[in-house]
């Protein structure tokens, strides 16, 4: 076993052990807290796919998080009202809603990516940010779905044979989904497709001369990443029983990016650690002082200035970051 696989195994073993530990110590909030880590990790891992492997600095991934959440919330809203949406009576089955959230987020990602990928560099950052902001305003404008205040959700979606109203069960479900998604992402970045994608990051001109059209590869990665973030949004709506435009705010996009850089960009596993550390830090600082931003800001600056490889890179050591 290499040092890296030990680290990865330890991370997941620890995550699987949290509910028993929480039960044993009586710290019931522990499960709720790590559920947040895991859901954010799912979004951050998805973003790492475009950021770390495709070199596309998307500042708009919160849009997909918001879309995923609103798919759950809007369908739940119509179920409660007993009316139909586009002639469809709706459903509360997670097996339909969650894939639907991924598809809708993927479609939004397709449009946003197709337009944004016409540019590169600084413009790409600004454009993804602007499109996410546009979606934010559209969500604020949905007056019948709560507008600025967002939508409450009365109950979690239903999975046959699983009672996800139980917090520990819901946590394990999220964790398994994260595991599956991480495994898929690993397959993807090590596949021929992933190799081409990483080639664009290293040297776009060389890749073009080798005969690969950039847009097709980048857009595919962007859409997959959007779908993953959409799933995270759907899970979040189920966790918080609430969806609001804030899910799509630009600050959320910034947080996802911060998690990736904190954990280690382009590592798939790093963002999991990054989300845990970022949210944990936030938790500790808010409990300690009202002006916690005064400390989080400089921490972020210092991490960027001095830690090039993130926590995961530091843990696995050596030069091999892959």
């Amino acid at each position, binding site marked *: 076993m290499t040092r890296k696989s030990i680290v990865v195994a330890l991370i997941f073993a620890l995550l699987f052990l949290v509910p028993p530990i929480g039960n044993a110590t009586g710290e019931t909030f522990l499960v709720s807290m790590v559920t947040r880590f895991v859901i954010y990790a799912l979004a951050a891992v998805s973003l790492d796919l475009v*950021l770390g492997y495709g070199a596309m*600095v998307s*500042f708009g991934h919160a849009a997909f998080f918001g879309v995923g959440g609103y798919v759950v919330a809007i369908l739940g809203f119509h179920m409660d009202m007993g009316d139909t949406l586009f002639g469809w009576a709706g459903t509360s089955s997670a097996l339909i809603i969650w894939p639907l959230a991924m598809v809708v987020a993927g479609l939004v990602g397709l449009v946003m990516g197709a*337009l944004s990928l*016409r*540019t590169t*560099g*600084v*413009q790409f*950052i*600004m*454009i993804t*940010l*602007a*499109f996410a*902001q*546009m979606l934010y*305003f*559209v969500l*604020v*404008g*949905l*007056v*019948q779905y709560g507008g600025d205040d967002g939508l409450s959700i009365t109950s979690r979606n239903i999975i046959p044979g699983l009672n996800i109203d139980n917090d520990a069960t819901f946590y394990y479900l999220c964790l398994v989904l994260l595991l599956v998604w991480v495994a898929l992402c690993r397959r993807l970045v090590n596949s021929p497709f992933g190799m081409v994608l990483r080639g664009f990051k290293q040297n776009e001109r060389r890749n073009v001369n080798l005969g690969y059209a950039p847009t097709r590869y980048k857009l595919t990665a962007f859409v997959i990443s959007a779908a993953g973030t959409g799933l995270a949004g759907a899970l979040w709506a189920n966790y918080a029983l609430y969806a609001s435009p804030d899910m799509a705010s*630009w600050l959320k996009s*910034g947080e996802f*990016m*911060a998690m990736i*850089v904190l954990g280690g*960009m382009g590592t798939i596993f790093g963002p999991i650690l990054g989300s845990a550390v970022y949210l944990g830090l936030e938790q500790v600082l808010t409990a300690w002082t009202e*002006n*916690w*931003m*005064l400390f*989080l*800001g*400089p*921490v*972020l*600056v210092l*991490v*960027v*200035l001095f830690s090039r490889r993130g926590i995961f890179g530091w843990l696995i050591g050596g030069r091999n970051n892959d």
Partner: protein
Amino acid sequence: MYMFIEQALNGLQYSALLFLLSAGLTLIFGIMNVVNLAHGSFYMVGAFCAASAVAITGSFGVAILAAIVSSAVYGLIVERLIISRLYHRDHLDQVLATLGVIFFSNALVTLVFGRSPPFVDIPPFLSGAVPILPGLNYPVMRLAFIGAGVLVAVLLWLLISRTRVGMLVRAGADDSETVEALGINIRRLFMLVFGLGALLCGFAGVMAAPLLAVEIGMGEKILITTFVVIVVGGVGSVRGALVGSLLVGLTDSLGRAYIPIYMSQVLPPTYADSVSSSLVSASIYILMALVLLIKPRGLIPAQR
């Protein structure tokens, strides 16, 4: 017709604000190749310093001075401490570091000035309204804002096209490596451009203080619109920033006035409100998408 003129003037005033912010930011992007999210923070610092200067001295002139000096100094501190270490880093690092600066600035301003937003009165010599057409009065403060925007645009044009520093700035936007190779101290030029950008932010802050709400987070709200301006106009060119500001300002203002009217005629009232309020907020982004489809590098990009 009067409504159109009034809305167009409102649009021009918004354009002036956007121009003051985007002119500096586009140069920072274009010349230094740095993504600076903290640009809006300088605007906020300027507005808060102006507000407290007015509260203490009661003089608008002192407020202008306070805003310009404070935001320029804050900008230079940020440049020296953080931005100057990020010139050769990739954009992601710059985004995150300046995001950290935003967090810090918001908390710092809250700590220094308190949570309740200070209120700034329109100074006496700019208060009231003047008739610009028979039967149409328009607030002097807004006209002064438009005038300030025009003045800054002319001064910037003179600076950039008529002076040696301006020549270096233009050369830097085209190809900063060659400028450095020709023996120019590029770091000093960067500092100058960054300071100038922050100073313009401060000026925008003091002019906006009597008209808009002075509050924590005011910088981020306008920053994203400023990004849209820069994308529409083209990165690195002040002329692009001017054209972009005008387009975005007028689109936003006229959209706010006319979209609800048209929508209520076309759509049933149950949907009209929802659709028009979403469409109003989204109008400038739709403009941006259209520009991108035709000219991915913006309308007037810097040469490269």
